[in-house]
């Protein structure tokens, strides 16, 4: 394409945006509202997802050391545990530490058991690399030998938790995909209406001998611009709300295992996604909509 022609197409699309003022306004608002909905729901669902993962990460395998195990044996056990694959971290919590935890949770009266009366075990706490390895790691740890008194990871409860989280994640994915489809549909529909009102114009263009691409380019650019401007509005609203919401909520959540997705890169990804949806749908929507009228 000649530069002059490209310049002409860009000029035409701007001219048409201005001359069709109200239609442009309607299309931009439709894009903005749709993307605002899509964007905020994605932000919400992705964070629910993140919290779900945090909950899962919190599940760890507790390996109880048999009472009366000597320190050497215990260290041997530690190196055995280190051999197991898919373990990210091994923590040791002595029976004294454990008792203190219990006293912290259930009350000082458990202080009676301090010293030699302590019925609790020394514990190795294994954090697996990913939640799905939990059961496997627990099995392998249990197989080490008599030094291991018991292995516990919440068993059935943890499995149930994983199941629920999996469901939450799947539902979230389905909703996000459905929303993106809705956005695509709504935006291209709005643009179709804007173009419908200009079908005579397209008909005349065809009759004076304009090629399809000559007609299509200005519409394509116009659609992309409408999509872009329409996306800028939800992008700024969501950015502002997410940044301020992030600081507030992270304050509450500090000291827990839970956290929101940090704005970098999450917010940047959402912004990129919304702008892309706007521009791509805008241009594709408009060129699809005029396809019908080009057949004259």
């Amino acid at each position, binding site marked *: 394409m000649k530069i002059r022609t490209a310049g002409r197409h860009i000029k035409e699309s701007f001219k048409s945006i201005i001359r069709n003022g109200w239609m442009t306004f309607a299309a931009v608002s439709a894009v903005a509202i749709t993307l605002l909905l899509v964007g905020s729901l994605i932000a919400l669902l992705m964070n629910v997802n993140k919290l779900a993962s945090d909950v899962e990460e919190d599940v760890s395998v507790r390996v109880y050391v048999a009472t009366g195990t000597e320190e050497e044996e215990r260290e041997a056990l530690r190196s055995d545990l280190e051999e197991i694959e898919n373990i990210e971290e091994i923590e040791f919590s002595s029976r004294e530490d454990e008792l203190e935890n219990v006293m912290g949770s259930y009350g000082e009266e458990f202080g009676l058991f301090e010293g030699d009366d302590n019925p609790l075990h020394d514990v190795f706490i294994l954090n697996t690399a990913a939640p799905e390895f939990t059961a496997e790691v627990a099995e392998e740890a249990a197989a080490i030998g008599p030094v291991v008194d018991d292995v516990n990871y919440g068993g059935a409860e943890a499995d149930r938790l994983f199941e629920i989280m999996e469901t939450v994640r799947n539902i979230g994915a389905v909703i996000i995909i459905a929303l993106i489809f809705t956005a695509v549909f709504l935006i291209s529909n709005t643009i179709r209406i804007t173009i419908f009102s200009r079908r*005579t*114009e397209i008909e*005349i263009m065809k*009759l*004076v*001998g304009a090629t399809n691409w*000559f007609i299509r380019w200005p519409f394509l650019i116009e659609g992309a611009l409408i999509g872009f401007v329409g996306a800028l509005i939800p992008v700024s609203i969501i950015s502002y709300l997410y940044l301020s919401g992030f600081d507030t909520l992270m304050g509450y959540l500090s000291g827990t295992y839970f956290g929101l997705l940090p704005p970098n890169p999450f917010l940047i990804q959402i912004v990129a996604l919304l702008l892309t949806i706007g521009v791509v749908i805008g241009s594709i929507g408009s060129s699809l909509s005029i396809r019908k009228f080009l057949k004259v």
Partner: protein
Amino acid sequence: MIEMKNVYKKYPNGITAINGLDVTIDQGEFVYVVGPSGAGKSTFIKMIYREEMPTKGTVKVGEFDLMNLKNKKIPYLRRHVGVVFQDFKLLPRLTVFENVAYAMQVVNRNPKQIQKRSLEVLDLVGLKHKARMFPNELSGGEQQRVAIARAIANMPRVLIADEPTGNLDPETAWGIMDLLEEINNQGTTIIMATHNSEIVNRVRHRVLAVENGRIARDQERGEYGYEN
């Protein structure tokens, strides 16, 4: 120049609009297409610039073989065939000048040529002084002149006029007629579908009467031949 042989056109709804039509029109002719409503006049005319594709037969316009013309090539055919309609079909959001210039932008002419030629054709139709107005600020006759200016801007070899005077009062209609005559004198073939018996009978040219999808009468300097 324009050649149709054994042409049939059956619409998807089952109506046969053209039923074995043969005709040849030479470069530079002025031809009236007359006939009752629904006889196939419009379909005949639309087949010349490929708005309608014949079901069967041969249609040739210049070097274009319309039966084997790819859809992608249609625009190039239309640059050789200017069309004027009863309802003008001007772009309402463009000024008179822009409407005329548009037909040339489409062909990728350079802006200087566009400027020059637009004013030239507007001068020919006598509307140079209204170049900056919008179509809705003009009278019907003036709008039709703009449409004609647009149709001839690219110097087509054929100008098709589908009832160009249908919406105009008699005096204005004569003005349009004079203009078409002038364009014809410059060598452009003119094919004009009309119901205006007065024009056909006074300004004598070849008359093609279309009835039941065929040429019922082909007469040099013929009469209109129907009761109005």
